[in-house]
């Protein structure tokens, strides 16, 4: 089957099988910035924005995205770069495999929550697992990034 998506603002048509999940379809189409972590919707690594809303792309049948707008980390380059500076300043990028999905969700949180508390940040980001950092460095980066937005 063929699906039509708008990925990072550009229309694309992709050939895929009816059962394919969006992560695989995007990767096969060259959007390799979308990473596959657990494949069961638990880790948040495959996060993309579907019409601006973060979703785990490994749990979305690609056909369901037909006609919709997908944003990957490469589609929010400037914003991602801004947050990336905070993340690497803490050394919390580490292996980086979870970073694109994590970053997309941080950007979504920034839009959704006004001045979130530490607990609110942890709760919003709970679906983004990381095996390297122990989360503390990521938290330091998020807090400093959000503070900088207010300045």
């Amino acid at each position, binding site marked *: 089957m063929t699906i039509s998506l708008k990925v990072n603002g550009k229309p694309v048509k992709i050939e895929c*099988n009816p059962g394919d999940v969006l992560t*695989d379809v995007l*990767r096969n189409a060259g959007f*390799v*910035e*979308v*990473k*596959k*972590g*657990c*494949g*069961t919707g*638990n*880790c948040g*690594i495959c996060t993309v924005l579907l019409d601006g809303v973060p979703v785990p792309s490994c749990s979305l049948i690609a056909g369901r995205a037909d006609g919709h707008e997908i944003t*990957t*980390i*490469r589609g929010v*380059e400037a914003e*991602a*770069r801004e*947050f*990336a*500076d905070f*993340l*690497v*300043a*803490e*050394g*919390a*990028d*580490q*292996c*980086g*495999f*979870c*970073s*694109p999905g994590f*970053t997309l969700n941080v950007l979504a949180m920034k839009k959704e929550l006004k001045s979130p508390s530490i607990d609110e940040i*942890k*709760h919003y*980001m*709970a*679906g*983004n*697992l*990381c*095996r*390297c*950092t*122990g*989360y*503390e*460095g*990521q*938290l330091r980066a998020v807090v400093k990034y959000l503070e900088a937005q207010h300045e």
Partner: protein
Amino acid sequence: MNNEFKEVKHSLPKIDGIGLVTGRPAYTDDLAPRDALVVKILRSPHAFARIKSIDAQEALALPGVACILTWKDVKRIPYTRAGQGHPEPSPHDKFILDEYVRYVGDEVAIIAAEDEATAIKASNLIKVDYEVLPPVLDFEKAADNPTVIHPESEIHDMFPIGFKPQRNIAASYEMEIGDVEKELAACEVKLEKTFYTQSQAHVAFEPHVAFSYIDIHGRLNIYSSTQNPFHTRRLLGQALDMPLSNIRIAKPRIGGGFGAKQHILVEPFIALVTLKTGRPAKIVFTRKEVFESSFNRHQMRITMRVGADKEGHVKAIDMNVLSNTGAYGEHALTTFMVGGSKTLPLYNKAKAVRYGGKVVYTNKVSAGAYRGYGAIQGNFALESIMDELAHTIGKDPVAVREMNMIREGETSEVFKIMGEGSEGVDMIIESCKLDYCIRRGKELIGWDPEKLAWEVAPGVVRAKGMAIAMQGSGIPLIDMGSATLELQDGGWFKLRIGATDLGTGSDTILAQIAAEELGVPTSLINVYASDTDHTPYDVGAYASSTTYVSGNAVLRAAKNMKKVMLQAVAEKFGVPAEDVQFDGMLFSTKDGKKSITLKDFSFDTLYHEGANMKTLTATGSYSGLKSPPPYMAGFVEIELDKGTGKVSILNYVAVVDCGTPINPNLARIQVEGGVLQGIGMAMWENVKYADNGRMLTNTLLTYTIPSREDVGKITVELADSYEPSGPFGAKSVAEIGIDTPPAAIANAIRNAIGVRLTDLPFTPDKVLLALKK
């Protein structure tokens, strides 16, 4: 952090950080050729079986299938998948494909097709007739079981490791210092307890992945998510009976390892496909395959006996260990030995010490290297019983540690006797700030020996516990790293290292070490790493070796590079080399009469000096005479609900002596990440099997790793310490963080409810059961 250094001991951002976070193609699968054949593995549904027949005709006839390989198509060469030095201390007990399958998930056939869907379809069409054999699933019943897991005659060890496959024993070992029984008999206080540690999954988020192709010269090239490219080349050459000169292994960016990738695993499959078809091939493990068919932590049973006087002076320690290596013996002996060699020296005042036991085969997924590597298992047992000693004599657990523990300037006989698979090396501890780590940890957690548990609500108790730990810094006399520096036109340096950055930031800290020694900013060092064709040898990232072993190699390369440059400038100026100085930008004679910038000099060496033009390059290699341990004190505050049995981690304090932190932020993150993995092992993580040997925990739905909401706070501080033998005073930091949580949390639970938990992990059911006793 203000200090005397310009580049090291500074928290520079990781050199690959921005690229990774913003999603640049960097990992193995991102770089795989688009026309690569997709390789899938048909796996055993049985825990133990013999393949009676295998028919791939129908699968082969499927359009899009490029090749299918079964055990009959592969040369029968026993090898080990353990990424270790040569000769490997792991038995050569694995065949790429075999007539026998030894666990659910073991390899039966290799399928290569044009796309994934076709490969999966083909694998479903292969007809296999199995003779199902009775499996050995309980590791306590494995030795001398009527079922022999490895009856084949070709398997062997590389040197004596106590390998007795006819008895299901992969390795065994005994050592004794002094007379343990005599000392124990004379002790006023004697304790004995048996502890169980579970198998833990690594859960690196990038799965095992590799791709292969034949290059223009007809050589096999493999890009792999590996922790040890050079070992992979050697082991693959052996498994395929191929000259090493025909193989290249390169490691791109890698999405975590934690020991899981200190093995050769997927490389033989794609190599066989590429060699047979001449086409590029790639394999990406599914998460299920990562759980069921890679490696996990050795499950252990550890029986501790400790003898002391009434004041708490430890006189004798006896550790007997049974370890489960699963179907194959990767890292069997060495993880087992580290259980003693990286725990027992903590208490070096004991007069008699014994360590022994065996490592057995079972029909479960193979155990392998995993951060902590035996030390976390041993630490749980040793630090639990040390706490029990404190309770028995009525002393502060901290005081009992302080009166027995190793200190700067001291040694332990264990260092000399126990190495990794063979004898160790004698060493005096030149840096040990364990006393500070404990003192500072007490302050940070608010340690009051009179108030280690208190009720905050009816049935809800808060409690504190602690443990200390040590690890190592590389494997002395066995593991080697090397580095090459080369001056480039424009006045910057190419740093080529065999070392393998797993996302830890080692490429960055090695650049910092080179920059510090050369006196230039780190931005003038460009790193090329982990490629067997293009970088010098290095054992790879394991055994907490990179900062110390590879770091020392980089330091030597930089010292040599400075000499080479000063000599070349001296020749240019027509003065003796000792009259030339370099300030990081400018070479000048000491009298100030002649000078040239690094940039101009770099152009001159390559373009402007006629017959004298040359590439300025220098290499350094390092293999350690010792393995200076990093140390740590871990303190935890928990809340325990007696109604539900739930234990919550409110705060975990880690104070670590890793020598000079080359990059304090990256060192701190290593500890934070290690602590959380250790907490995961203590609290939730557990690889479980059904009665027929199928793994029950083969997804992240069923295998629980900590999320950011599962732990209150992790507080990490680094002690001010300097290791004279390390690069700019550095020791290792990669593993030490993981070691203390199981014991510290067990000790806190003991303080909370008065019952000692001895079986990891501490799930609510176990706490409730303990409360009923």
